[in-house]
């Protein structure tokens, strides 16, 4: 290895391990975020109290009623005897949802007609409402799949707003308990990597500008390329280690395993990190103080990753123009690929589009930073 | 309006065995000092000597850990509230608002001291500092020297009797520095006491009195002339063809001497009863070093300071 590059890399490692703050940001913050997201803001909604108003009292309607007792998320509530009673229970908050089975349901099903079911949901808590809606929809879908030969598909209708999200279905297949941790961990890895990789790279360069040591590097024969490699290699190594730590923690704390190939997962993580480091470097070529680097990174990459990458909020539910913006966020591709690898156990064949896009991001951001850095170092 | 009480006191500030530590590190070590009323008093010392700490204690921003401190006849920190209106403090970074104009900066400085009818004083100060033509200009758009003068004007608007300036000439070009000193001297003549800190020894030569601060201690204080005269050495300036070669010859010839090499000359600081000029020249010529010219030069404050530090180091082992 060239002496300059070795000097650069060794120096970066020394600085990272010397400063308790940097090391803390790199190691503790990811763990903290993991635990926070994993436990505290789990989006699972338990104990949805559902009452069934069974006007039919047929074997079919009883089967549906029993389903609510089997699944953990529901706790059976009182059984209202009239629509007015059901409404009152919802208003008082004793029930989160009420399912109305009309009389003649069993008969109509038997006769091959499509009988209607009415679902009343307390919409005041959106999270509970949408979860209940999603579960019940998924439940009937599941039911209809399993019982297709036996039953006709019942149509859950009546609630006019009842349009279940399309992507609910795959989740039902591969996450049978519908646990949000399984869904969140891949996104969490992406989010944590964005915070640590982008910020630590950007801050480490900008700190050199602030302290005046950048001037020393500029005056030395160190080339822009060596500078960039020297700045990326240490943070790449540290971030990769972090990913492994999060995966291990995810496995043991939350029981989220990896269904697919670990080497493929590490491979795509590498590409994602490369683009994160590139963005970090690019930010550092635009600003001169650590404060503005922090601000810019938060606005340009951290918040968009949180909101627009599909980490928490499904992209398909976003308005089209916003969906277009999500294509600019590397985490979007990474999370898709990660979920495919971790949850679905997909192979190399299904993640190559994401790999290509991430590689493109990396080349673009690193190339542009190198260019900008070179230009800055030789002002006009 | 604050009442101008001319107490006629001899000293604007008196420090008695003042000590101050930060996180266990002593910044000021049992320092006693008397700052005479009126004129410019310079605190001289390298970065980290404790000059800023001292100034901040004098204006009540910091409280001493030990010892007693009296400013304008009032004991601090007890009497701070009473004496604060008579103090002005100019921090190292000229605390100006870059996005406000000269007038607005002055108005703000006056209003935080509760002044209402300050416009006459403001005009007077702008006139004095030569800033009147630029009064609508934003502070950010001023040159370094103009910023410095504006900062001074802002500290003067409430008629302080004691002004504390922390490295006011840092990074200011010599021309502006000369103008700034003219202003300071003018203020000193109006019975105002100005205490300034500076790392530059040559700047201290311009002050009425100086105090050398080194590692939180007072090494020496007095007027520049008196300090120079108190030095036990004389300096011989020698221009020779090969200055570097002359160094070992001179140190062999007069081991007690202090040698300093400059770009085109050598200074030999000898004790008052040391050898005469012609003896030194002869010694060099004998060693084959041609002396182009030589002559006594006036010692500078730096020479005295240097000796003091070395003596101090010798005492401490």
């Amino acid at each position, binding site marked *: 290895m060239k002496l300059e590059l070795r000097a650069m890399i060794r120096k970066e490692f020394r600085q990272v391990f010397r400063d308790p703050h940097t090391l803390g940001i790199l190691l503790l913050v990811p763990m903290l975020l993991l635990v926070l997201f994993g436990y505290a803001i789990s989006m699972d909604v338990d104990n949805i109290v559902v009452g069934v108003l069974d006007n039919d009292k047929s074997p079919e309607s009883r089967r549906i009623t029993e389903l609510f007792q089997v699944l953990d998320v529901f706790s059976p509530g009182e059984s209202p005897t009239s629509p007015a009673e059901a409404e009152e229970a919802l208003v008082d908050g004793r029930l989160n949802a009420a399912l109305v089975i009309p009389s003649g349901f069993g008969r109509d099903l038997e006769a091959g007609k499509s009988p209607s079911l009415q679902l009343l949901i307390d919409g005041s808590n959106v999270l509970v409402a949408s979860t209940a809606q999603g579960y019940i929809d998924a439940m009937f879908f599941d039911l209809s799949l399993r019982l297709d030969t036996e039953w006709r598909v019942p149509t859950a209708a009546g609630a006019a707003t009842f349009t279940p999200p399309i992507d609910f279905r795959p989740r039902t297949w591969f996450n049978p308990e519908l646990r949000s941790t399984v869904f969140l961990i891949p996104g969490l890895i992406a989010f944590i990597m964005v915070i640590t990789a982008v910020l630590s790279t950007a801050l480490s360069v900008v700190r050199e500008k602030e302290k005046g040591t950048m001037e020393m590097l500029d005056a030395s024969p160190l080339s822009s390329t060596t500078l960039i490699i020297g700045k990326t290699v240490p943070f790449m190594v540290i971030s990769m280690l972090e990913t492994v730590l999060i995966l291990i923690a995810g496995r043991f704390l939350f029981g989220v395993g990896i269904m697919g190939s670990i080497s493929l997962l590490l491979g795509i993580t590498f590409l994602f990190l490369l683009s994160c480091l590139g963005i970090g470097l690019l930010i550092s070529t635009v600003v001169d103080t650590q404060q503005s680097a922090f601000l810019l990174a938060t606005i340009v990459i951290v918040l968009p990753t949180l909101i627009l990458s599909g980490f928490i909020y499904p992209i398909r539910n976003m308005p089209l123009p916003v969906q277009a913006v999500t294509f600019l966020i590397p985490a979007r591709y990474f999370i898709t690929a990660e979920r495919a690898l971790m949850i679905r156990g997909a192979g190399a064949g299904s993640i190559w589009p994401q790999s290509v896009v991430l590689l493109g991001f990396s080349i673009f951001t690193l190339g542009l930073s190198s260019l900008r850095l070179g230009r800055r170092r030789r002002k006009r | 309006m604050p009442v101008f009480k001319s107490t006629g006191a001899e000293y604007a500030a008196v420090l008695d065995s003042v000590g101050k530590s930060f996180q266990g590190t002593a910044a000021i070590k049992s320092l006693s000092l008397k700052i005479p009323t009126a004129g410019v008093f310079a605190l001289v010392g390298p970065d980290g000597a404790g000059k800023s700490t001292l100034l901040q204690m004098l204006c009540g921003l910091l409280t001493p850990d030990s010892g007693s401190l009296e400013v304008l006849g009032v004991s601090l920190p007890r009497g701070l509230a009473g004496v604060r209106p008579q103090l002005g403090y100019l921090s190292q970074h000229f605390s100006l608002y870059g996005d406000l104009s000269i007038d607005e900066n002055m108005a703000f400085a006056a209003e935080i001291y509760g002044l209402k009818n300050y416009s006459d004083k403001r005009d007077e100060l702008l006139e004095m500092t030569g800033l009147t033509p630029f009064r609508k200009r934003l502070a950010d758009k001023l040159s370094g020297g103009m910023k410095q003068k504006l900062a001074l004007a802002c500290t003067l608007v409430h008629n302080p009797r004691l002004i504390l300036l922390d490295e006011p000439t840092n990074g200011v070009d010599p021309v502006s520095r000369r103008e700034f000193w003219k202003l300071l001297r003018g203020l000193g003549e109006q019975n105002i006491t100005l205490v300034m800190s500076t790392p530059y020894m040559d700047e201290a030569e311009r002050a009425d009195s100086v105090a050398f601060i080194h590692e939180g201690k007072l090494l020496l204080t007095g007027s520049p002339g008196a300090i120079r005269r108190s030095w036990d050495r004389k300096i011989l300036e020698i221009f020779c063809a090969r200055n570097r070669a002359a160094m070992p010859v001179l140190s062999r010839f007069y081991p007690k001497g202090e040698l300093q090499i400059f770009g085109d000359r050598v200074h030999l600081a000898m004790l008052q009863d040391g050898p005469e000029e012609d003896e030194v020249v002869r010694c060099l010529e004998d060693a084959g070093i041609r002396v182009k010219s030589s002559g006594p030069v006036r010692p500078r404050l730096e020479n005295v300071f240097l000796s003091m*530090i070395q003596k101090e180091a010798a005492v401490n082992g």
Partner: protein
Amino acid sequence: MGEHIIEVNSLVKRFGDFTAVDNVSFSVERGSLFGLLGANGAGKTTLIRMLCGLMIADAGSASLAGIDVLKNPEEVKKRIGYMSQRFSLYRDLTADENLEFFGGLYGSRDTVGAAGRSRIFDSVGLTGMENTLAGDLPGGISQRLALACAVSHNPAVLFLDEPTAGVDPVSRRRFWDLIHERAEEGTTVVVTTHYLDEAEYCNDIVLMHSGRIVADGGPDEMKRRIISGPVFEISGSGASFLESVLEDESWVVEFSLFGDSIHIQTVEGMDSEGVKTRLLTLAGKTQDFSIERITPSLEDVFLRIIDQSESEGEEII
């Protein structure tokens, strides 16, 4: 000797409408201590940045150690050492780690092994400090560490930007001794500073103002040339009285006030006796003066040149 290691010909650098370096030409001899002086904004930093290959000139040419600076800046960087203002070191790395890093940056083999580094530490008197964090070193020590880092690869030219600002006099003197040693061994040293006291240590000086060179020469030679008449320092109780009467005296070229003294530059050929006679006539026999002939400082020279060039400028307008 006599060989030019740096040659600058009609170098120009503009930023928009502002010409930072305006048609500057000079040359530097190998092994000399060259001072580039001027106020902040005079263009010296821009000039140095161009010579270090950090900035591209708009016009003109420059060479360093025979290499065309404009065509081959990367080659130039290998042959220079650069010590920036405030000694930019990594404060969170130890002295040894800093030296290893900067040595590695320049591909210096001497700093790869601990033995080589300890030799360098010894040469700048830092033995025993190897494992101290650079941020914990006092000013004078970190200054020498910065020097060690800048010269570990034996550069042909060493650039120093305000190398001794804020450092105590003992460290300063030691630093300049080290620099003179380096120069003796053949390293060319270029010092940029707005602090004119630092320039006294140089053999050759170029004075910049508004992007142009306004004077050049050796410090002493320059003083003699620019300040033609002798300068006297008058101190004593009568000195302050003189301020009001000196203005109209034809034998006084210029005077300036210091703390407890007054500096008078007279027309050529005056001696202290002559000055004393004239002053007694002016002030009356009762006044008490002490008169001493002094060497003007480079700051005096600088101020004189700026005054001259500005008054000429006004005449043209």
